[in-house]
């Protein structure tokens, strides 16, 4: 997490804790189709980042290829961005994090970019637990190439032009949990009230956090018979709980009946309260999460909310064992060993007693 710069809050009401206005978190004008779910997500990101008071220069936006992957251009224009090749953003994220562990990484991907071509890198990203917020703007189709099914298209869903999908979808949340991901959530572009706090929570998590966001493609997958249309998703959205995000050191303001909420504490001390809707749901129980997802799949519903969290998961940095300072910032004298080291090595190669 970025540590906030200690600026005095400006008088203007529109400024956040780092003195920036909502406008500072915006980007270029979107060139997506009017009504595209992705634009709604962009909006939620802008608001979440503004409300959290993220410093733009400490965040890097990463993406692959697709309509979804274009969206980093449409928010946080003052952040660096890396729009990579199709399906390979995770490896970019891994490299960026290693070079500069102070950067907070926000990866934007699509269901094609992640579940089809990118499923390998997605798997290994999670396995390494690289600290990146990984958003999937999931519409079940390849928007940018005009509407072919992706690997998250539901069994039996219909394409705009006739064809029916005969394959089972990959459930990216279930997969992430099976792979040991420490933060897994699902949400809906059309539900900013739920999405925003989930985004904030994801940003507060220390390892890989996966947020799979149903995001209807109004142009190619919003017709009758599609299981990823606005209407269908709205109708089958089954939120597990009402989500509220509370930054570190802020008190919980709302009053809850005892037993009505669950509270999840994240790595940086921020908390998420989950107000129960139907049944109580414990996001610390991975096995239960898998069962819940499986049942929902069978029932044809989308459970949304914070599915699984493990704030204790050892961080990626431990394995790598890097210094605190960003590797990218190390001066020459910290990365070029002194003359005597070369001499020692040369001597070993002279005498044949090469170390290693």
């Amino acid at each position: 997490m970025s540590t906030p710069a200690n600026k005095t809050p400006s008088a203007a009401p529109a400024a956040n804790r780092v003195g920036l206005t909502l406008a500072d978190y915006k980007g270029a004008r979107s060139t997506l189709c009017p009504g595209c779910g992705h634009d709604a997500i962009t909006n939620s990101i802008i608001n979440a980042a503004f409300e959290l008071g993220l410093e733009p220069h400490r965040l890097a936006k990463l993406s692959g290829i697709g309509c979804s992957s274009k969206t980093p251009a449409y928010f946080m224009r003052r952040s660096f961005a890396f729009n990579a090749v199709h399906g390979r953003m995770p490896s970019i994220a891994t490299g960026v994090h290693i070079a500069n562990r102070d950067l907070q990484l926000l990866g934007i991907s699509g269901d094609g970019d992640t579940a089809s071509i990118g499923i390998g890198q997605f798997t290994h990203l999670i396995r390494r637990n690289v600290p990146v917020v990984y958003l999937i703007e999931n519409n079940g189709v390849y928007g940018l190439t005009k509407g072919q099914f992706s690997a998250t298209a539901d069994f039996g869903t219909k394409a705009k032009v006739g064809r029916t999908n005969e394959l089972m979808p990959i459930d990216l949340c279930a997969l992430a949990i099976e792979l040991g991901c420490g933060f897994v959530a699902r949400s809906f572009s059309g539900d900013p009230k739920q999405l925003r706090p989930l985004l904030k929570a994801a940003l507060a998590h220390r390892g890989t956090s996966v947020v799979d966001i149903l995001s209807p493609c109004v142009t190619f997958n919003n017709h009758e018979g599609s299981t990823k249309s606005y209407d269908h998703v709205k109708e089958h959205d089954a939120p597990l709980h009402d989500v509220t995000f509370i930054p570190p050191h802020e008190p919980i303001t709302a009053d809850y009946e005892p037993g009505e909420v669950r509270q999840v504490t994240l790595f940086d001390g921020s908390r998420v309260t989950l107000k129960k809707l139907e049944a109580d749901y414990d996001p610390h129980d991975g096995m239960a999460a898998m069962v819940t997802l499986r049942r929902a799949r069978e029932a044809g519903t989308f459970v949304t909310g914070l599915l699984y969290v493990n704030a204790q998961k050892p961080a990626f940095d431990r394995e790598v064992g890097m210094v605190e300072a960003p590797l990218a910032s190390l001066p020459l004298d910290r990365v070029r060993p002194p003359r005597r080291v070369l001499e020692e090595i040369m001597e070993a190669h002279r005498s044949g007693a090469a170390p290693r």
Partner: protein
Amino acid sequence: MAALAFSHEGDSSLSAPTHVRINDCNLHVATVNGSGSQTANATLLRAIFQMGVPVSGKNLFPSNIAGLPTWFTIRVNERGHLARTRTNDVLVAMNPETAADDIAAMGPGTVTVVNAGIPLPELPSDRTVHVVPCGKLVEPIVPDAKLRKLVVNMIYVGVVAHLLGIDAEEIDRALGSQLGRKQKALELNRAAVNAGLEYAREHLPPAPVRIERRSLTDGKILIEGNTAAALGALFGGVTFVSWYPITPSSSLAEALQGYLERYRRDPQTGEATYAILQAEDEIAAIGMVLGASWAGARAMTATSGPGFSLMTEFIGYAYYAEIPAVIWDIQRIGPSTGLPTRTSQGDLLSAAFSSHGDTKHVLLFPASVEDCYQYGMQAFDLAERLQTPVLVMSDLDLGMNVSMAEPFAYPEEPWDRGKVLTDEELDRVKTFERYRDVDGDGIPYRTIPGQRHPAAAYFTRGSGHDEQARYTESSETYARVMDRLARKHETARRLAPGPVIDRAPHAAVGLLSFGSTAWAMDEARERLREDGLETSHLLLRAYPFHPDVRAFLASCERVYVVEQNRDAQMAALLRMDMPDLAPRIRSVLHYDGLPIDARSIVERVLHGEREEVVAR
């Protein structure tokens, strides 16, 4: 040369050969992979080196962990000709599976040591064959049968030491420096060497090729190219390495990992000033490098053919988005899996034009372990100065075999991280445009993610972009950016290392070599001279070609481009680049996976010259 009689167990003629060649011979050892012969061979090599005589060793090993045939060749040459040669003077045949062929390949006047029990073929009388009961000799020394298999090879070390006249002391010292910390192993091996030595002294005449002490290796080191490259990266300030195991590049990454662990991790805190990751494949490896490099690390990867092919898409991205990256391609024989443990220079064209669209990349051609060390550093400087991938085209022969060299020099210069604008500089320059050619050399300025300056941020993409890194589909802008990239490639001609030229005053014929091909050039030129053909020589060190390369070609009537591939790939690059000089380019090609030798060059150049005369 005198014809020598067959010698069998115990009945060798002990008389010295009539004609003796000093410090100029080739020793060939045939064993079984995984049988522990490396220590034996390294001991011989090192002992000769310690006697002050220039020596090289080449390991010809199978793509297998244990059980298949393997060979090791030691070339001794006091004039420093250390490339492979096609003929051997002394053979040690320990592998029953290949012995018949190995022995049959030996010419007149040669000496063969063969392990007892291996059936002997019929041979002309001018080949000497010594049958040595290695098993019997080692039995009393090592009672444990399993261990014995590993020690038995030391018998031939002793035998060869006697045959060639290698100092027993130096053998002992070489053994000591290798097994120093393993006392028990050292003793067993020592005993086995002595058993071999004694047996040989008693039963075998010295060989007609001998080694005598010189002082030509004083102060020198013995090192593999991959180790040297790792050292270069270490002192070049590498901060990130990602790799995926593949022969023959793994030893580069693994050597680097060892050095980094030792010299770049704080022994107190355990904190490292680097990170090295084993990626899940080569696409991820290069992706990580690009991410890290973009974010300001000095990042590299090492791979070989198949891995290099997998990197294609990302290499094109790096070219167009202008991200520095250092990629070592330790070439092996392709296409496809090919012969994974054989050497080649066959990736030139696919590297130079890697990825779709108008791409052309910067290639470096290390021709020695010194180059590996130097390029290990310089490739970073070059990649960061040019903001583009730099592909270092090494090969298995250079990377995995040991060479003699002067000790490497500590870098006296700081690193050059190219055109990076700090926040302070941004304040000064006022406008920052990521892809603007401010200096006319085609190279733009960059900032590093995380910089706080409000103008620092930019958007990196592989799609069409303008000078300000904004998305565009404008035809004019696209073409303008591409023209600048072409200009940058022109700049690379002068930033990359220029050729090393040795011009013979009146020579009409030039030879052009690069990479490990260079090793045989001195010898080849000497022999050509003996045959009456003076040649000039150019050692090519980088693509795109330095203007001096053009001048060299222009100054010769004919230039033979010597390369280790079938398709004359370097010649193709030269012809493309200098079409007006294309007609004077000839090719000497060698592509059977074995390192090229001087004789092959000589024969083909002479053949070419004869054809030339006929044609005229």
